[in-house]
């Protein structure tokens, strides 16, 4: 009989769910790729006395994915040439990505020969790894859960327009809408919330202290309101993407702040960039300031995302989950729309309390939220009321537990060991009697 094991492709922010799962399921090996074997994962494993098994170590010595994939790539070559797209383009992609699937499939196959894989949990099923893993699980009788990496407030398009895993866990009912519209059955979608937002339950009650921390860290004026812009990026995965929404939208924000400053408004402005923009983000930010000859002072942040969401007096973002976080913690939210090459479906609904503005309306929107107390209060009240539709439970901090419960319901039951032979049973009985 094989011992049970779980395959984990979850990032650190979702490990609370794994923690809850292990507490309920009991000890079992955690199988994960080497790049995902983080100190945080090791800590959760250690807490439950679980072994972490690196997928790559299950492959034979000298395993070479490129040579393993060579035969299938040869077989695919004529098909790549017949797509109508430049053959070299398809072939290049195929040569780079097929070995990823081959290696992952072989490693998962080796894991399955050694363990009874009771569940595969991943935070995405679109990239080479996530998609290959969930597709592998479906053809190998391993239950699979895709815990959404974000709330799909933009309807799933191109590479996102499918569900490869058995089930999709979404943050709130809003996150199911796009998938239901694609015809994915409702019983494959479960509303759990985002374990990564569980911290808001506590953080939202510490607003003054959080603001003080930000004032200190970013040299903000504690007497002035805080306007935060959360940047975005262009994934280049849809033709609706104009190419560089990061720069376009940052420019709109800076222009709006300058307009407000010229009109006499005084506030702190913080640009919260994505950690993935670290390589170029600050330089682009400084270039954008220099190009404008700005008068308003700006701070640039790569960290403190949740603190900024809690402490901001106005949070501006581009169809972003950051705005949902603002809804959860009572921060007035402004969605900068009309960024695409052509009109797209609204990300938020009319009852969301998230102010929708186009670039030329941004300054007015920020100003109204800063200065019109009734409007601000009404927007926040509406957002708070609507928040559970976007994130189940609001900021109740219970999402990791809900995901853990789903994982427990989906996982194959722990294999039951056959009863020991009669002689062993007699020996144990004799031992117990002797102890009396």
């Amino acid at each position: 009989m094989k011992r049970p094991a779980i395959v984990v492709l979850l990032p650190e922010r979702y490990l609370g769910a794994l923690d809850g799962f292990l507490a309920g399921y009991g000890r079992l090996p955690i199988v994960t790729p080497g790049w995902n074997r983080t100190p945080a994962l090791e800590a959760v494993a250690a807490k439950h006395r679980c072994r972490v098994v690196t997928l790559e170590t299950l492959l034979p010595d000298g395993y070479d994915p490129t040579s393993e994939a060579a035969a299938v790539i040869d077989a695919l070559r004529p098909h790549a040439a017949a797509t109508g797209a430049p053959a070299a383009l398809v072939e290049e992609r195929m040569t780079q990505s097929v070995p990823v699937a081959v290696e992952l499939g072989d490693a998962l196959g080796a894991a399955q020969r050694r363990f009874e894989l009771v569940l595969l949990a991943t935070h995405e099923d679109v990239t080479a790894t996530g998609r290959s893993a969930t597709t592998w699980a479906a053809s190998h009788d391993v239950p699979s859960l895709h815990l959404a990496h974000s709330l799909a407030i933009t309807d799933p398009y191109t590479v996102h327009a499918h569900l490869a895993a058995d089930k999709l866990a979404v943050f709130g009912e809003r996150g199911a809408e796009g998938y239901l519209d694609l015809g994915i059955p409702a019983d494959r979608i479960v509303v759990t919330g985002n374990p990564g937002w569980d911290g808001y339950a506590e953080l939202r009650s510490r607003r003054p202290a959080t603001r003080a921390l930000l004032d200190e860290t970013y040299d903000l004026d504690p007497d002035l309101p805080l306007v935060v812009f959360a940047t975005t990026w262009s994934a280049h995965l849809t033709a609706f993407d104009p190419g560089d929404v990061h720069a376009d939208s940052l420019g709109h924000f800076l222009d709006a702040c300058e307009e407000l400053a010229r009109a006499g408004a005084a506030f702190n402005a913080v640009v919260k960039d994505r950690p993935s923009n670290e390589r170029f983000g600050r330089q682009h930010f400084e270039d954008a300031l220099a190009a404008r000859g700005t008068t308003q002072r700006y701070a640039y942040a790569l960290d403190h995302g949740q603190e900024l969401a809690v402490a901001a007096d106005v949070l501006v973002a581009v169809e972003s989950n950051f705005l949902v976080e603002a809804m959860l913690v009572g921060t007035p939210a402004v969605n900068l729309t009309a960024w695409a090459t052509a009109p797209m479906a609204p990300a938020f609904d009319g009852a969301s309390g998230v102010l929708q503005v186009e670039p030329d309306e941004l300054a007015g929107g920020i100003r109204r939220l800063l200065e019109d107390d009734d409007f601000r209060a009404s927007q926040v009240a509406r957002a708070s009321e609507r928040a559970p539709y976007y994130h189940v439970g609001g900021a109740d901090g219970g999402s990791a537990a809900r995901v853990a419960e789903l994982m427990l319901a989906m996982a194959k039951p722990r294999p039951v060991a056959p009863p020991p032979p009669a002689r062993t049973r007699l020996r144990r009985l004799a031992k117990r009697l002797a102890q009396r």
Partner: protein
Amino acid sequence: MPAPLDRFTTTLESRLVERHTGGTAASVVLRAGPRDWKKALRRVAPGQRLLIGVGPEVSVDEVVAHAGRKRFTVVDLVPYGGLAGGVLAPRDHPHRWRRVTSWLGEDEQLTALATVLEERWVPTLSPSMAAYCLVVADRRPGRHGGPPARPVPSALPPRDEQLVLDIEALSTRALARYFLFLVVDAVAARVPHVDPAFLLTPRRRDEYAAWHEIQQIDEDVTTLARQWSAACADRLRDGLDVTVAVDYELVRQLLEQHHGRFEEIER
């Protein structure tokens, strides 16, 4: 029906009733089912006006014929509720449509555009193209009623240039424009052989065409990514289709290089 769309339709209905009561006492029965409208006809005194708003389960022809037999002259038939399940409402992506219409009553321009479409365009259609129809009937003092005062149109009305200009002026923001394009698509899907751009100025026609072209590019790259290897049996390795790993980067590169979507971007 989602609440904002229902509220919007109820407001339309109230204005419609007000316009057709003509300042005189009238008997009004709205959202009438098959039993309600016959009862309503019996309660009207000679010389009085009756307004019956009938739903999709009621045949307007039957109401008109019956009213004629009961000494009514049908003075007008006004279709309404184009968005509430009529010709303006898409039949697919119901959650998206609910989200779009959730802005009725919230977004000023979208609400104004929807109102113009409902009040100036939907009434010119055949009642079969709307969710509801207001039957305006006067009970004549004499023994027999007359025929309907206005023939029921059987096709789309001719293009109204002023309406088309007003629609352009009310779709300057992306939300209203998105709504407009969905509505035009819905009509095109419902009415055979219609020019989908019949409600659009040349400028909006170009934008509508570009919007379709962009959607088509997304569909094309998605189809290519999903199907390019389908005929190759060797793509399966121990049950795993190893080509699924290609999709994500392939779609990105098809958009970047094959379709040249982001050429002007340096990084």
